């Protein structure tokens, strides 16, 4: 779900509004429209999250292939989010 949140924020920053999560033959992804455009002008959004290891480029290519093969034809975007180990330090002062 973390990858979805980052992807939705990313495409929002690029002028898109995510409208719905939909299911199809290969799984599920999101559909969005460019802000201000009607819902009929659907653009698909494929999202994937990977851990520290693994190639982001290869995953993007895989997702683009999925867009090409999937049941829903038309334009689409692929967003891959790599999660690296986050380090958070907190200390208290009395």
């Amino acid at each position, binding site marked *: 779900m973390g990858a979805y949140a980052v992807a939705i924020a990313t495409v929002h920053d690029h002028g898109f509004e995510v*409208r*719905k*999560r*939909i*299911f*199809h*033959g*290969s799984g*599920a992804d999101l*559909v969005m429209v460019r802000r201000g455009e*009607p*819902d*009929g*002008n*659907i653009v698909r959004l494929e999202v994937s999250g990977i851990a520290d290891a693994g190639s982001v480029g290869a995953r993007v290519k895989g997702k683009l292939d999925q867009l090409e*093969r*999937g*049941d*829903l*034809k*038309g334009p689409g975007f692929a967003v891959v989010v790599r999660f690296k180990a986050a380090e958070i330090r907190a200390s208290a002062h009395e």
Partner: protein
Amino acid sequence: MSSFDDPRSRESEETAFDAERLERAGKLEEARALCARAALLEEVVTADVPPSQPRIKMVLATSSIALWVRAAKFERALALVRHYIAIGAATEEDLAELAEQIRSRWVVPTEIGAPGQLDEMAQTYWDAREDVEWKRTRGGDDATQQGLSGLEQLWRKLSDKDLAAISFELMSIDASLDRTGEFLFEEPLPQDVADMGPRTGR
């Protein structure tokens, strides 16, 4: 309000999300029950999308079939594939991947009779759908529009048994068309080669 904002569509999305969580927790039966609920909601919303929004209708149609597949209700999913193609909500190409998934996973229940044995309601729906498909092929858009609402009404009256019988009939016809192709090209199909042994394919 767009169909994406329809409260039933939102409820379907949330229900499907809950189903995924149950799936991940290994509670498959409960997950399937929720998927079926989500699929039905999506199906009802799809039926209400006006023809003037074809792309939205196609997206929701695809999603409802995919959810029926996840609910393991293959007979409904397969009948719905053909239904959506007949009403023009999607094309065969749009739904090819899902149709393939269904055909490879559905085990026909033993209580379903032989092909060509549809009960009265299933037969009425079948005839109405063929009529719409025929008129669509001939380009009679007005006539097709008249038949569509009737077809949607008949769809809602179909029982699970009717849907299973319709799907079985569709699979039987597909298989016989494959056989015709095999006869015309005098070439055994790959699965027959596997059934009969490797020498057949040489």
